[in-house]
C-alpha cells in the first residue's frame, strides 16, 4: 500500500472537501476529522516502521515524473523523517482545534471575519506539503515541496494575520524565495555535475568529489536552509512573520516549516557534501553559538509575547544547527530530537499566547499582569510550556538540549560551554515573561479573563502530556532516531570521540 | 537613379519625426505619423524598383492597410479623448505615468 502518498492525498482531498461544504462549522469539523484520520494513518505507519532494518528509506515509492531529466516522484522515510512527519501530523489537529474561532470574527477582541473555509483548507494543504517535504527522497521533489510550502503559509499570514500582516508576509516570502532560488541553482548544478542522470537522493550521495565544487554547492543548499531555519544573521523575517501570523499558523511556521531548514542541513548538506560540511563546520558552529546567545539576549528585551517566543526559537535553532554540525552521534540524535521537542514546547507557548491574545486583544506583555489569580490553569500550562522552553529536566527539551550540548562538548568544548550559558539566559527570558504577565496584582484589563474552556484544554493537554512523557522517557523516540543519525554520520565519515580514561570493562554503559 | 527618391524619403521621414516630437495637437501628430509611414512606403517602392522585384511594393500595400486601420482606431481614440477632456493636445493626456 502506498502509505506516504495516501498520507499526502488524504489532506489534499480533504482540503477540496472543506472548501466545498456549505457551512463554516461543518468545514471546521471536517478539517479536524481529516487531520485526525491522517494522524491515525501515521500511527499505523509508525507502528510498521522498523528502525533497525537494513533498508534505509522504508515505505519507499518511486515513479518517474520528468523522465528526460531524471526527476522522480520518490518518497520514503527513515527515522529522522518519520519523527518529523509525526510531529507535523500531531500538531495539525491541535492547531485546527486551537484556531477554531480565529477566522470567525466573533469575540470582543477577535480579528475581523475572513473566509473560514479557506483557512482550514490551507491548513490541510500545508499538512500535505509538510509530509511531502520530509518524505521526499528525490532532491528535485524536495525542492518543489520546499518552495510550494511557502504559498499556503503566505496566504495564512497575509490574509489572516495581525495589523502588519502584509509587510510580514511579503518579507517572509521574499526572504524564503531568495534562499530557495540559490538552492535551485545548486540543485541543477548538482544534477549536471554529478552526471548521474537522476535527482534521486540515495544515488547522489558521494557523487560530487571535487572539493571546490562541493563547497559551492554546499553554500547554495546551506544558505537556503539557514534562511529557512533561521540561523543568525538570516533570522529577522521570523519575528515579524511569527508575530503577525495567527497563533495556529505561527505554530506550524516555527514548529514545522522552520525544521525543514535544519532537517535539510542534516540530510542534504552533510551527506551530499561531507567534505565541504567539515570545511564549513567552524563557521556554522560560530553562527549557531552567536544565534543561541544573541537570540536569548534579544528575547529578554522584547515587549511583545509572540516576538519574544520567536526570538527564543532563534536561540533554539542555534542549538539544533550546532548539534547537526557537531557531527557526533549524541549531538546529531539530540538535534533531531530537539526538532521534535521544540515543535511541541514552542508550539504550546504560541498557542497559549494565542489564547491570551484572544482574550485581551493585545500581544504586549505590559498589557497583562496577575493572570495567575484569575486563570490558574491557563497560567499553569503557560508555565509548563515555558519551563520546557528553558529545558527544565523532566520536560522534553532538556533531553535534546543536554544531548546536543554533551555531544558538542565531546569534540568542540569551548563552543559547548559558551552555548551552555544559554540555559541561564533562557531562565531569564521565560521567568521574566511569566513574572510580568502572570504574577503580581491582577491588572484591571484581565480581571474578567475566563480560564481555559474545554476546547482549549483539549488543545493544551496533548502537548503537555507529550512534553512530560518524552521528558521522562525519550527512549522510544531515540530508538527510532539513533540508527538513522548513525547512518547519516557514517556517510560523512567522522571519527567518534573516545573517553580520555578508558574503562577496563569496555567503554560506555 | 534612385538616390533622389531615397533622399526625399529620408527628408519626409525626418519632417514627420520632428512633427511627432514637437507638435502638441493630436491630429497634427497623427498626420506626421502618416507622413513617416508614407516616407517608408516611398523607400520601399524605390528599393523594389532598384532591385527589380515586387517585394517592396507588396510591403507598401501592407503598410497602407495598416495605416488605414490605424487611422480608424487612432481617430476614434482622439475623438473620445477630445470629448472627455475638451482638448486634443497630447500633453493633456498624460494619465499613464509613473
Amino acid at each position: 500500500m502506498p502509505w506516504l502518498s495516501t498520507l499526502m492525498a488524504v489532506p489534499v482531498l480533504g482540503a477540496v472537501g472543506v472548501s466545498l461544504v456549505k457551512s463554516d462549522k461543518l468545514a471546521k469539523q471536517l478539517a479536524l476529522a481529516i487531520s485526525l484520520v491522517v494522524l491515525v494513518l501515521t500511527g499505523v505507519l509508525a507502528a510498521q516502521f522498523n528502525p533497525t532494518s537494513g533498508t534505509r528509506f522504508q515505505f519507499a515509492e518511486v515513479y518517474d515524473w520528468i523522465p528526460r531529466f531524471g526527476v522522480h516522484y520518490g518518497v520514503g522515510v527513515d527515522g529522522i523523517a518519520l519523527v518529523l512527519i509525526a510531529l507535523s501530523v500531531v500538531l495539525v489537529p491541535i492547531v485546527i482545534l486551537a484556531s477554531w474561532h480565529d477566522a470567525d470574527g466573533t469575540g470582543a477582541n477577535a480579528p475581523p471575519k475572513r473566509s473560514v473555509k479557506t483557512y482550514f483548507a490551507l491548513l490541510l494543504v500545508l499538512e500535505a506539503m509538510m509530509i511531502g517535504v520530509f518524505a521526499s527522497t528525490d532532491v528535485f521533489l524536495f525542492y518543489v515541496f520546499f518552495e510550494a510550502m511557502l504559498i499556503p503559509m503566505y496566504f495564512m499570514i497575509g490574509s489572516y494575520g495581525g495589523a502588519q500582516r502584509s509587510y510580514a508576509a511579503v518579507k517572509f516570502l521574499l526572504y524564503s524565495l531568495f534562499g530557495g532560488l540559490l538552492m535551485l541553482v545548486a540543485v541543477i548544478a548538482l544534477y549536471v555535475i554529478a552526471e548521474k542522470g537522476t535527482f534521486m537522493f540515495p544515488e547522489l550521495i558521494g557523487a560530487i568529489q571535487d572539493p571546490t565544487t562541493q563547497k559551492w554547492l554546499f553554500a547554495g543548499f546551506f544558505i537556503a536552509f539557514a534562511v529557512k531555519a533561521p540561523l543568525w544573521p538570516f533570522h529577522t523575517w521570523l519575528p515579524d512573520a511569527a508575530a503577525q501570523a495567527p497563533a495556529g499558523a505561527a505554530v506550524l511556521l516555527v514548529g514545522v516549516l522552520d525544521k525543514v531548514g535544519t532537517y535539510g542541513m542534516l540530510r542534504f548538506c552533510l551527506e551530499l557534501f561531507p567534505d565541504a560540511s567539515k570545511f564549513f563546520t567552524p563557521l556554522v558552529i560560530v553562527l549557531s553559538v552567536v544565534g543561541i546567545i544573541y537570540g536569548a539576549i534579544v528575547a529578554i528585551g522584547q515587549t511583545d509575547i509572540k516576538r519574544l517566543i520567536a526570538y527564543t526559537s532563534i536561540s533554539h535553532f542555534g542549538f539544533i544547527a550546532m548539534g547537526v554540525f557537531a557531527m557526533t552521534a549524541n549531538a546529531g540524535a539530540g538535534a533531531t530530537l530537539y526538532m521534535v521537542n521544540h515543535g511541541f514546547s514552542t508550539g504550546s507557548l504560541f498557542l497559549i499566547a494565542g489564547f491570551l491574545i484572544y482574550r485581551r486583544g493585545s500581544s504586549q506583555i505590559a498589557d497583562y499582569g496577575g493572570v495567575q489569580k484569575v486563570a490558574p490553569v491557563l497560567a499553569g500550562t503557560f508555565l509548563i510550556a515555558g519551563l520546557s522552553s528553558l529545558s527544565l529536566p523532566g520536560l522534553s527539551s532538556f533531553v535534546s538540549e543536554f544531548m546536543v550540548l554533551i555531544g558538542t562538548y565531546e569534540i568542540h568544548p569551548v563552543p559547548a560551554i559558551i552555548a551552555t550559558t544559554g540555559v541561564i539566559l533562557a531562565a531569564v527570558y521565560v521567568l521574566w515573561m511569566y513574572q510580568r504577565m502572570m504574577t503580581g496584582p491582577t491588572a484591571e484589563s484581565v480581571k474578567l479573563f475566563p480560564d481555559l474552556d474545554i476546547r482549549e484544554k483539549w488543545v493544551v493537554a496533548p502537548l503537555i502530556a507529550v512534553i512530560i512523557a518524552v521528558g521522562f522517557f525519550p527512549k522510544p523516540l531515540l530508538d527510532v532516531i539513533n540508527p538513522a543519525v548513525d547512518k547519516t554520520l557514517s556517510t560523512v565519515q567522522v571519527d567518534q570521540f573516545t573517553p580520555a580514561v578508558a574503562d577496563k570493562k569496555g567503554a560506555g554503559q | 537613379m534612385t538616390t533622389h527618391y531615397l533622399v526625399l524619403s529620408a527628408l519626409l521621414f525626418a519632417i514627420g519625426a520632428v512633427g511627432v516630437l514637437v507638435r502638441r495637437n493630436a491630429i497634427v501628430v497623427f498626420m506626421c505619423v502618416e507622413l513617416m509611414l508614407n516616407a517608408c512606403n516611398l523607400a520601399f517602392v524605390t528599393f523594389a524598383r532598384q532591385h527589380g522585384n515586387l517585394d517592396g511594393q507588396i510591403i507598401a500595400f501592407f503598410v497602407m492597410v495598416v495605416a488605414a486601420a490605424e487611422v480608424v482606431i487612432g481617430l476614434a481614440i482622439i475623438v473620445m479623448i477630445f470629448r472627455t477632456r475638451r482638448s486634443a493636445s497630447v500633453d493633456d493626456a498624460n494619465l499613464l505615468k509613473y
Partner: protein
Amino acid sequence: MQSPVEIIPHSSGVVGVSWLMIVLPLLGAAILLLSGRRTDRWGHFLGVAMVLASFVVAVASFVELLGLPEDQRRMGVALYQFIPGMADMGLLIDPLSISFALLITGVGSLIHIYSIGYMSHDPDRRRFFAYLNLFVAAMLLLVLADNYVALFIGWEGVGLASYLLIGFWQHKPSAAAAAKKAFIVNRVGDFGLLIAIFTIWTTFGSVAFAKVFPLAGEASNGTMTAVGLLLLLGACGKSAQLPLQSWLLDAMEGPTPVSALIHAATMVTAGVYLIVRSGAFFEVAPTAQLVVTIVGVATLLAGAIIGSAKDDIKKGLAGSTMSQIGYMMLAAGIGPAGYAFAIAHLITHGFFKANLFLGAGSVMHGMNDEVDMRRYGGLFPVMRITAITFIIGYLAIIGFPLLSGYFTKDGIIETAMEHNQILGWLAVLGAGLTGFYMSRMVFMTFFGKKRWADDAHPHESPAVMTVPLILLSIGSIFLGAFLILGNRFMKFLAPAVGLPEELPVFHFGSTAGLATLALVAVGAVFAWFRYGAADVPEVAPRGSFLTTFARRDLYGDALNETLLMRPGQWLTRFAVFFDNRGVDGLVNGLAATIGGTSGRLRRIQTGYVRSYALSILFGAAVVVGALLYVGNM
C-alpha cells in the same frame, strides 16, 4: 584510608521498590494539581499521606540495609533506560543516600503536618501541598539517583519546586521576583554542574557513579580539579554559598513551612550532598578541596554577620542557615575525615533548623504574620510550647553542651583545626557569632518588653503545629550524641564514603572546644546586654557601618546589580537596538535601496507621448548607428 565498597545490583525486597519513595509524593503532586478544586477539602491529607508513606518506605529500606553485612551496603536499583547509551534511570541505596532520604521524608513529613495548620486559612492550600510533595519527590530523586544525569533531573526539580513555593503568593510582586531570582541564581550553579557532567562524560565515557568513581584516580589532575570546581559552582548555587548566596534571603518571601523545608530538609543540603557524593573526584584534586573549604569558611562568617543584623526573624534564620551550611561545606572539603561530620551536622541541623523555622512560623501565626522582631518581645508566657521548643533549637544550634549541635559542630571545628589552623580558628569565630545572633533572636522574641502592634493578640498555635515542634526538639536534643559518640555515624557511612586512616575520638574539653564554648558564651552575654536587659527600640537605629554592611547582605545584591544586572540590561537594550537597526536594518535597507532605485527610475515614465517618441527615436538612432558600425568593421 578504607575506600567505599562496590555497588551491587539489587532488585528484590523493599529496596527493589525503593522507587516508591520518589513516585508516591510525585503521584500526590500530580493528583493534587490535576484534580482542581474538587480535592480542596481533603487534598492536604493526601499530601501528608503520600510523604508519610514515602517515609515508611525509606525506613523499611534503611532497616533492610542495616540487615546486610557492611560490604554489601551499596545497592544499585536499575529502573529503565533513559538516554540509551548514556544514562539510565537508577537508584543507589547506600548509607549516604538513605540518611538523606530519612531526613527528607522524616522532617519533610513533620513540615507537611505542620503546614495543615499553618496554611489552614489559605484558599490555595491544596496547591501548596502539591508543590511540597513535588519538592520532596525531586529532592529524593536527587539523593537517590545512581548517576549524574538523573541527579541533575532531581537537582533542577528542586529548583522548580523552590521557584513555585517561594513564589507561592504570586500576587505579591516581591514574592514573584524572589522566586525568579532563586531560580536564575540556581541556574548559574546548574551551568557549572552541567559542564561538570559534560567533562565527566568525555573523561570517563559514562556518568554512572559506579563507573566513574573507581576511575577517578586515573584521570589527569587538571581535569579532576576542573570537575571539582565546577561541581562546587553547582553546589554554591543550590546551597547558597558565596558567591551565589543572594537568593536565599529573598527566598523568605515564601510561606514559612517552605523556608523550613528549603533550609532544613531539602534544597540547601543538596550542595553538601553533591560534594560528599563526588568525594572520589575531590580526593584526587586537593586544589578543589581547598577552594571548597575556603568557600565554606567565607560563607559561614558571611552568613553569621548577616544574621547578626537582621530584624526580620526569618531573614535572621536564613543567615544562620548560610552559616551552618558553610560549616558543612568546610567539613566536606576536608575529605573522608570530614564527611561524616558534614552529614551528621546536616542531619542535626535539619532537625533544629526545622524546629526554629517552624517555631518562627508559629510565632508569626500568632502575631498576624508580623516578622519584625522589634515588634515581638515578651512572648514567652503566651506561647510556652513554641517558646520552649524554639529555645531547645536555639541551644542546639549554638552548640550548648550535650545538645545535638554541640557534638556535630564541635566535630567539624576540631577536624578543621587538625586540617588547617587558620580555617579552624575562623570556624571558632563563626561559632561565637552564632552565639550572638541566635541569642539576640531569642531575647528579642520571647523576653524583654512587649513591643506588639496594637492589633496583635498572640496565642499558642494548634496542636497540629506544636506536635511537630515537640518531635523536632526531641531530635535536636539527642540526635547529635547518638550519631557522634563512638563514631557511630562515621562507621555507618563508611561503605559509601570510606573511612579516614585514624578514627577521631570525641573528647570533652579540648582546646578548640573550650574556646568555642567561651566565645559562644561571650556572644550570648553580649546579646543579653544589648537585647535582653536593655530596651529594644521599635524602629531600628541607624547603626554603625558594620551593621549597615550586614543589613544590606554584605552588599551582595548591590554587587550583583552593578556587575551583572545593569550591564545585562544595557546589553539587552543594545542587542534589541542592534537587531532592529543593524541586522534587520541591513535587510530593510537593501529592500529600501531597491525600492528607492525603482522609484527614481519610474520618474522616466512622464506620461508625455512626445518624450516617449523622442526616446524611441533616440533608441532607433543608436541601434542603426550600432548596426552601421558593426557592418563596417
